[in-house]
């Protein structure tokens, strides 16, 4: 399978994720979309690692998985905390930090 296809897939997944983050208002969905972006990046790393026979890319994929796991821990905790204090989950309503 040519690398280009895989990279094209990764690009498509990344674009879908980015669009999800931009379009949706529910932080949980935004979170999942961000997760897709992570995975697209990991996929691109792995694809190039296979092409160039370099382990560095594989290692980066593991780093991404670990980081994403940590991010999920913190992010979900924040979302649960916000849900405790507000009736609805809508990022547009959480805008107290405006200048």
């Amino acid at each position: 399978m040519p690398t280009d296809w895989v990279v094209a897939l990764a690009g498509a997944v990344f674009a879908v994720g980015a669009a999800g983050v931009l379009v949706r208002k529910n932080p949980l969905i935004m979170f999942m979309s961000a997760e897709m972006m992570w995975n697209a990046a990991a996929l691109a790393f792995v694809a190039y690692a296979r092409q160039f026979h370099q382990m560095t890319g594989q290692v980066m994929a593991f780093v991404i998985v670990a980081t994403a796991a940590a991010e999920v821990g913190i992010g979900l905790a924040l979302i649960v905390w916000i849900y405790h204090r507000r009736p609805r989950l809508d990022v547009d309503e959480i805008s107290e930090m405006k200048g």
Partner: protein
Amino acid sequence: MTGLMEIVGLPLLGAATLMVFKGILPGRMAGIWGSLLIGAAFALALGAVVHLGTLPAGHRVVTGTLFTWTTGFGPAIGWRLYLDPLSAAWILIVTGVGFLIHVYSNGYMADDPDIGRFFAELNLFIFAMLLLVLAGNLAILLIGWALVGLSSYLLIGFWYERPSAVRAAKKAFVVNTLGDVGMLIGIVLLYQRFGTVSYSGLFAAMQHAGPGSAFFTWTAILLYIGTMAKSAQFPLHLWLADAMEGPTPVSALIHAATMVTAGVYLMIRLYPLLRLAPGVAEGIGAIGAFTALFAASAAVFQRDIKRALAYSTVSQLGYMFIAVGVGAYAAGVFHFMTHAFFKALLFLAAGSVIHALAGEQDMERMGGLFRKMPVTAVSFLVATLAITGIPGFSGYFSKEAILGQAFQSGHAVLWAVGAFTAGLTAFYMFRVFVLTFLGEPRDQALYEHAHEAPWVMTVPVVLLAVLSIAGDGLGGWLDRWLAPTFHAYLGAAAYAIRGGPLWTTAVAVVLALTGIAAAGLVYAVQKKGAHAGNEYGVGALGLQAWGSDAVWNWAAVVPFKLLGNGVRRVNTGFVAVLDRVAGEVTAFADDLRPIQTGQLRRYVLSMMVGTVVVLAYFLVRF
């Protein structure tokens, strides 16, 4: 060390404990505790001096280093204490007279709510003064020197609610600091040249130098500037009269008996340096003589009893510097000791009078107090006779020793000025005595309330009166006692106490008697008041010490104020510019505020657009 650290440490302990516990301790206890510690320090000092006397004459020094102070630049400087016959004379007076004045203060300050702070600061002063005279090198001496200036500042400004006291304290501090700078530069020069500041090291190095080099001349001048400020020599005399704003025991202890003689101590201590700068020594003597005459002439016109005594102190310090100038060091020390007795006595007796008259210091409202306060009056008379130089009293012997040696060493002019000043001294001192104690009371209401001081105040006064008479016995002892110090290094040929020819003494005594007679004629027979002659014209000028304050104002204070105002204006302009810049930045930031919407998705969008733009740029470039 054998007790030197304890002598210095006891007053410091007193100052620390009184400062910490002054809120809890009752006033009486604070006074007793403070006095007790100084009494103990006096006992220890006496013991140390006796011990010093048992040492063989060639090795009559007790010294030791507590710890090393500075390292890292040049040779190390240690905390060295040093007791030799010269510093022995000073520690005996500082602790002995200091103890008497502490006891007296128990009565004088009894009604003051801040008595705890008073004794704390008084103890701090004794500590600083002892550190100054027991220092083994010039660096430690400078620390004591600055600390006595600090405690003097604190005590002049003791009644800090009075604006005049605060002003006087500030003036004293500024003038003293002026001198400190000169001293510091002088000491640094010596350190650079010789790599040591300890007395023994410096003097040993100076043994090999010949007189006349510019280096020694300038070092001596710089150190003398410090001396000038501390010992109120013309033209830096102006702070001492204002220092009378402090409580009277402070005036007696600091501004008469001890601190102002620190300069005399320093100059006598540095006699090997003066040998190398003979011109400076001559100058010191000349300035001393001028100061003696100048201050005595100002004292003639004073209305305030304490200011009159203050100018008399400046005048007597002038005598001590005549002694320094002509190399009559032992006579200078002798006059320092007798002066400590009779001038402390004059101030304490004046303090009793002020106490009895509910704080009144104007001699115009005194008079006739002999009947009300006989003990104080007789003691004051004894001190007056002593300072006047009437044969039989201590001041006669010490003053004659100085004047005699000035004459013998070929300084006839210095002798003449000194002898004439002795006449003036007699006049103004008897003026004070007559106006205060004789004649009819000029303020009947104050006179009715006047009473003899309590025993705690009269006992020190009477003891000092005894010392003022018996002090003449010190002369012969001092002559032998100080010999080892002045034999150790070159430069003290005329140290021994010798009188002049008989006719010089006779002239001085006749002048003094004439002064007494003149004062009696004007103030007792013609019954002139204290205001007579100083309302306008020459007298008004004399009241202001011949306008020296005005000259200083014009020469130093006004230019500095102009400079300060100029600098302030520049600073104000600079700050205004900064303010405008800051205002612009703030306005710009206000314009940018709407960008921060708080909308998370807007942020994400701008991040993504930014990323895409950056990537696009690189894509196009390559």
